[in-house]
């Protein structure tokens, strides 16, 4: 067995162990014997049964697929744009989702459970359509990233304008939503995110050689028979759908897409197949544990998960800068 296969098997084991361990964390006092009996369906304590099956397991599963999805979206964008700093956030996806969520909150105060994710999803897609449109008009697909940053700021300022004049309650809700949280997720959310994730992974595995060919430049890829613009557009669409779905249910969770592929490149390799599988596994482990920290580090409150990922992400960023300074 080669080194990469071994690492993948270890990571798969860690994902399963992390998910199981994470179910034991939480405010309700449930010991491991009770946990196991509830998991196998012979639970004596009905409250424990409900807490495990309706609160903790959905939450851990959503953390798992959201971590996978965000990390994969970052990995795909980085390889298709040959830019290690590409991240779904830089393409305006999250600010678009934020604008959608803001409009939903301000204009439809009731029935937010369906309206909020839907509006966030539409906002994210809207921003991606603008970004691609701008890049198309400029006829420069490599400028997607710059167009993304511009659109991100534009939508962000519209959001802030609406929030500034909006009703304080709605404004509060949006601000908390933007910080990211898994506190209100349900099993249904897991199914939706997992379906999009499966479509994304299957598509990327199908075209992994094409994406790899891009790593040595657009011209080189085109000479190997790759339709560079079409491939990039397809991958951007997949990342947008993936990120928009996750952001719609979980709010803003930054830096996962930037940080995890970076670790995978150091640990496993840079080519697409290795990067995607590695990012999915490490992303899942990362977000499961960050969510454990988010819900169990303060006695009677939760820390929004986006605050923790951003804090860890920025420290990580400085660490990379420090290390690359040491190398050069």
């Amino acid at each position: 067995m080669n080194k990469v296969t071994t690492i993948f098997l270890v990571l798969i084991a860690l994902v399963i162990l992390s998910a199981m361990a994470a179910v034991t964390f939480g405010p309700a006092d449930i010991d491991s014997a009770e946990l196991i009996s509830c998991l196998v369906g012979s639970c004596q304590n009905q409250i424990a049964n409900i807490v495990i099956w309706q609160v903790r397991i959905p939450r851990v599963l959503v953390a798992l697929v959201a971590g996978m999805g965000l990390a994969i979206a970052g990995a795909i964008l980085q390889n298709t744009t040959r830019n290690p700093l590409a991240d779904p956030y830089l393409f305006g996806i999250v600010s678009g989702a934020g604008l959608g969520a803001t409009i939903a909150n301000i204009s439809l105060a009731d029935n937010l459970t369906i309206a909020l994710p839907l509006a966030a999803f539409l906002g994210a897609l809207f921003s991606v359509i603008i970004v691609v449109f701008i890049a198309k008009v400029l006829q420069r697909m490599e400028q997607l990233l710059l167009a993304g940053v511009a659109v991100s700021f534009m939508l962000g300022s519209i959001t802030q304008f609406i929030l500034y004049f909006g009703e304080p309650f709605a404004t509060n809700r949006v601000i908390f939503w933007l910080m990211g949280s898994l506190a209100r997720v349900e099993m249904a959310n897991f199914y939706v995110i997992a379906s999009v994730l499966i479509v994304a992974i299957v598509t990327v595995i199908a075209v992994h050689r094409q994406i790899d060919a891009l790593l040595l430049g657009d011209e080189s890829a085109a000479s190997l028979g790759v339709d560079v613009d079409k491939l990039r557009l397809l991958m951007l669409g997949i990342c947008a759908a993936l990120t928009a779905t996750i952001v719609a249910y979980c709010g803003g969770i930054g830096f996962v897409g930037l940080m995890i592929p970076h670790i995978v490149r150091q640990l496993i390799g840079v080519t697409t197949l290795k990067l995607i599988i590695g990012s999915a596994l490490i992303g899942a482990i990362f977000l499961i544990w960050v969510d454990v920290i988010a819900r169990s580090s303060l006695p009677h409150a939760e820390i929004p998960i986006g605050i923790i990922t951003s804090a860890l992400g920025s420290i990580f960023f400085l660490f990379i800068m420090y290390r690359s300074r040491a190398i050069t």
Partner: protein
Amino acid sequence: MSTLLNISQLSWQVQNKAILQNINFNVRKGEVIGIIGPNGAGKTSLLRCITNQNNILASTNVTGSVQLKSRAITQYSAKEVAQHFALVMQKNDTIFALSVQDVMKMGLLPHKTLFSLDSDHDKAQINLALKKVGLEQALHHSFNQLSGGEQQRVLIARALVQASQVLILDEPTNHLDVFYQHQVLQLVNKLNITVIMTVHDLNLASLYCQRLLLLNQGQLICDGSPEEVLTPKQLSQVFGLPCQQSIDPMTGATQVSFYLPETDEHHSRFSESVDE
């Protein structure tokens, strides 16, 4: 030798500027052809048209035809074109730490379907190609950390894995020192496949190409053996510097040397370009 490529009345115009003008020539199987000419003569543009990069021949700015095995190249899919032509580019901008193996695997792409993984046969092909370019030890080395000459050789090996019939090289000796220049061109010469390459150094082109195409301002000035093409009259017209032709006593190849202008005619272009 059978005709592999037929380029006929090829012209490319961009905003009233002629990039290529009425280019006609054939390429026979097994030929090693060098395209020479000053900067901006249209050498790389010609390579782009021959391989129909980004479907350039479909653009309204381009007229004329390129036929591969008596069939218009526009009728081939991008994948089929990649099965016939392997390109070795001037510049490779990668920032990720690709290994030599990763780069080599790219060569398999035109022969693979969606979802396909690497087979043992693929691995054997890769090892064989690296052996041919003398880099069998470098499989797991980082591509970026190789010397310029080694990178070129890896890309040539990638072209071998691609198993195409024509190898296209754009300035393969750029940024290489004298040793690597000869090493790379000697390698290309020994591969026994059809090669079309742009070369800046006229003496290297003469030494390693059976046939030269001299381009100037988008026009094909001369097409023939090095001896026929590298004449002082033609070269001094095209490059704006007086030159002399000689035969290299060691190799027997036609060689040229340019010297500083003395006549007014040459001097005017030279001093203009210096002033720029």
